[in-house]
């Protein structure tokens, strides 16, 4: 089962990963991080490990495991 890890402390909240996920498995977190932005959060589910979110992430904070 594939999964991703998002470094929520460093996330600046551009949400480009949310629009690029073909399965729609990333959402906006309910909690604020230390920057005061709501980071992107992995919901879990049927991640295929396509790495689209990590490829588009401008801050390189997403790791993909498969």
């Amino acid at each position, binding site marked *: 089962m594939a999964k991703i890890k998002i470094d929520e402390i460093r996330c600046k909240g551009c949400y480009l990963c949310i629009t690029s996920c073909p399965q729609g498995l990333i959402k906006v977190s309910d909690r604020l991080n230390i920057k005061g932005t709501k980071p992107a959060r992995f919901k879990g589910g049927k991640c295929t490990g396509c790495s689209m979110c990590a490829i588009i992430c401008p801050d390189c904070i997403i*790791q993909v495991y498969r």
Partner: protein
Amino acid sequence: MRKSNQKPVTRNQKKKKINKSQVENLIFSRPRSMRDVEMHYCAGCGHGLVHRLICETIDELGIRERTIGVAPVGCAVIAYDYWDFDVTEAAHGRTPAVATGIKRVRPESIVFSYQGDGDLAAIGTAEIIHTANRGENITVIFVNNGVYGMTGGQMAPTTLAGQVTDTTVEGRNLKRDGYPLKILEMMAVLPGAKYLERTSVHSPQEVLRTKRAIKKAFQTQIDNRGFSMVEVLAMCPTYWGMSPIKSADRIKNEVSTFYPIGVVKSY
């Protein structure tokens, strides 16, 4: 005194049982030549993406030990804090001149210059054109976002007609401000320029295409063919005054219609 054949006692003496179905392979993470620090760029800025693509390319080509980058003046002025290979800094717009000097003194090095549109298309137009015309064997990565980012969002030569910036509050007026500058098409007529391509970073597919273009540009230099340059259309959500997702849509719908994506010149 401990006997020499006595093994030191450790906590985890028992071997952990590993279930093969649970083994996870890390298939995507930060490239090795990119430092593990937080970048200062705004949310959704294209610079971070291009930094990462350069690092991935350098790792894949195995040229990290002999690469020398030249950082510009602009938003990417402290790019040397994010790259874990040799980087130097140049005066505003003079990056290709500094890269020329480094390449001529150390021809075995892989030299690239990283520039924005205020740096390359405004103050450094003379340097870039003459470097390309001399056919210097360097690679130029040109990040075009259409505004002056570091100084507060003023109009750049590459700003599109009608685009609102700090100095063109009613949109760029072509009669007063002139026309947007297409650097790559301008340089395609120079015989010294060997490989010119324009790409974008507004979607994962385009990011992968940008990576292929950057890799081919570096390969052009490794093969001693001559001057290579990749123009990357990047987002500036802060000074375009829109969200990062809308900025990506703007590149797709507006910017890439004026600056067509594709290979402009190839050997």
